[in-house]
């Protein structure tokens, strides 16, 4: 069965701290895609990154970085030098061969000034 687990329900850090959001997935597909989305209080889901199952290179985009490890079925997301504007709910998702996104429960990130 396809499943995405985000074990951290809520994380609270002080601004400028680094924070890592964990994501563990389960799938039997050999070809799959992993995603991270951000949902600010406004409600709209904002696409952050997509990774395919054949590309284990880490990705860095500004203060954001992603670590994909097939050996541990994990796709973790790190924010460096966090800012108050990073406060949101972050979702990890898995796309299966049916083009269906299977979502984690989300991690609420609170950045305190």
């Amino acid at each position, binding site marked *: 069965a396809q499943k995405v687990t985000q074990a951290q329900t809520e994380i609270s850090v002080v601004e400028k701290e680094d924070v890592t959001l964990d994501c563990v997935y389960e799938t039997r597909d050999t070809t799959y*895609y992993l*995603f991270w989305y951000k949902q600010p209080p406004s409600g709209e889901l904002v696409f952050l990154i997509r990774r395919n199952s054949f590309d284990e290179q880490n990705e860095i985009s500004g203060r954001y970085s992603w670590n994909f490890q097939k050996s541990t079925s994990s796709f973790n997301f790190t924010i460096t030098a966090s800012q108050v504007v990073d406060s949101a709910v972050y979702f990890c998702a898995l796309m299966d061969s049916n*083009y269906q*996104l299977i*979502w984690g429960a989300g991690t609420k990130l609170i950045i305190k000034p």
Partner: protein
Amino acid sequence: EAGVTQSPTHLIKTRGQQATLRCSPISGHTSVYWYQQALGLGLQFLLWYDEGEERNRGNFPPRFSGRQFPNYSSELNVNALELEDSALYLCASSWGGTLAKNIQYFGAGTRLSVL
């Protein structure tokens, strides 16, 4: 370029009524997806339309239905509303075709409240 637009922003209905939610995809996108985000239940896949046809359906009763128009916009209909249908309904669009091209971009959602 305009993103995914959804209307209305908020919708208040009473139990037993019908609700119609609308979604316009990003220009050039042929696939539209509907998701329900209810408190405590997370994001759940509802429906997927591509090129005017329903391609996949989540685990929801038949009173959740929809369609996709020739201009690729879409409508979600919820009949015989129940209190537990209260949720944020999110629409997403993407290029159709291969899995490799599939990134779903979301609208701001319609918040449906059933009283």
